[in-house]
């Protein structure tokens, strides 16, 4: 099966601190991969390198066979862990913005997702609550027919109702020809949607594999394995 993402000997250092240490990872086409780890484990650093917001100190990253750059930005749909939309925008402006910049943006899908998330086109970005922000951002990101989706903590800090809506949106709108990378520390809520999981600890991969196989091998749920690894 084709590798959508190939990561070889990836290291990222900030002065003396090593955020990622010699990571090797391949992500196959059509897989939903959970990058799991507590705060500070290197999850966000890893996906920032994949999206071109950070530069690696060593190693190589290929997405769809290309080094991170303008091409990979056109095929990666990224959901950051913050409110990244311009504050002067309305929901409609954000929709037009995505439509203008991304050829793979599906207008019909966005309108469906907007209805599902109970958001209106004339809402102003600066007046949205945390949960509404998260839902709008996700609607924009999932409305692209991208080759790789990168979602950074998609359900962190939102109420349980919004959390369910977000998870449903991810499951219902996932495209099987694409790959999806999701970072989270809320493992119990998300483990059912992962095909593969990668456990990151202090910038290193401590365990990785197929979620179902790991459950069988260990006789535990993924969130129990998570606790076993990270609770000292």
């Amino acid at each position, binding site marked *: 099966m084709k590798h959508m993402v190939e990561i070889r000997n990836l290291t990222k250092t*900030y002065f003396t601190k090593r955020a990622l240490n010699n990571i090797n990872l391949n992500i196959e086409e059509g897989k939903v991969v959970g990058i799991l780890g507590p705060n500070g484990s290197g999850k966000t650093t890893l996906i*920032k390198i994949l999206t071109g*917001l950070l*530069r690696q100190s060593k190693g190589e990253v290929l997405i769809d066979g290309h080094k991170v750059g303008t091409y990979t930005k*056109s095929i990666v749909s990224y959901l950051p862990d913050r*409110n990244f939309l*311009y504050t002067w925008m309305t929901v409609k402006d954000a929709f037009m913005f995505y439509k203008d*910049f991304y050829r793979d943006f599906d207008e019909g899908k966005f309108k469906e997702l907007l209805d599902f998330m109970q958001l209106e086109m004339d809402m102003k970005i600066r007046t949205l609550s945390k949960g509404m922000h998260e839902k709008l951002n996700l609607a924009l990101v999932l409305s692209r027919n991208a080759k790789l989706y990168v979602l950074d903590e998609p359900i962190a800090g939102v109420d349980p109702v919004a959390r369910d809506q977000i998870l449903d949106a991810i499951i219902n709108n996932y495209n099987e020809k694409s790959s999806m990378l999701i970072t989270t520390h809320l493992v119990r809520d998300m483990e059912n949607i992962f095909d593969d999981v990668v456990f990151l600890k202090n910038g290193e991969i401590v365990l990785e594999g197929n979620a179902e196989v790991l459950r069988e091998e260990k006789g535990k749920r993924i969130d129990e394995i998570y606790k076993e690894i990270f609770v000292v």
Partner: protein
Amino acid sequence: MGKLIKYEIRGNYKFIAGVLALVLILTTGMYAYMTNTKGGSPFEAMFVFLSFLVIFGTLLATFLYIVNSFRKELYEDRGYLTFTLPLTGNQILGAKLIVALIWFTTLGIVIALYHLIMLYIFTPYDISLSQIFETLMDIGLPFRDIIASIIFTFVNGTITLILIYFSMAISRVTFRNKKIGGLWFLIFLVLNALIAFSQVKVAQLLPYYLDISSFRIGRIDMFSYGFHIDVDSYGVMMTGNFGNILFNIASFIYSIGIGVLTFLGTGYLIEHKIDL
């Protein structure tokens, strides 16, 4: 790039329109007070003075607001959107630069035209527009010099803007800490001083000048104008006693070269070096 320009303009136009409205209202008030009062009371003098201060302050704030639009990309969450767009560093920088130039040009032209209109309206003499135009033609305005000066100011302004953006990008790459992000200004001052110094050196090394009025090229001593040497910030423009404007050719080309290099350098930093 055109699409990003569109969204940059949409994001700023309300602020610029507000600034223009404020400046034009205060300008109208100033002209009205200055022409309709005789002798002037302390209150009127205070109004004119404060209006002048507010206009100056507003334009300075606008300059910082426009220039800061690039810095916001480097330090605020909006950078997560801008820098993940499928655009090159040069395209992002180009869009920022073009929009800044559009705003500065718009502000400059509208404010200058408004002053002319105010002068015309509030002038105590009954004079028609055609008479004003005829008088200007009779005086024989040095249109070529005026146009050359406008082009020169535009080129210098563009280079200064690029240097500002370059300083911000260098500051962001070198110091990740937002608290010392203002260090870009210090970098800008040092770079500006170094460039001005090197431009003077280039002008001294290749002292060939272009006289805009006559389109003659030669060394300074070939022009018998009796110069008071009035070197501009980039050390390449001189004004003769008869109003002639001379450009040092080598230095002017050097300035444009610096502008192009710093533009490409900033684009490179955006694309390959800046960590958000």
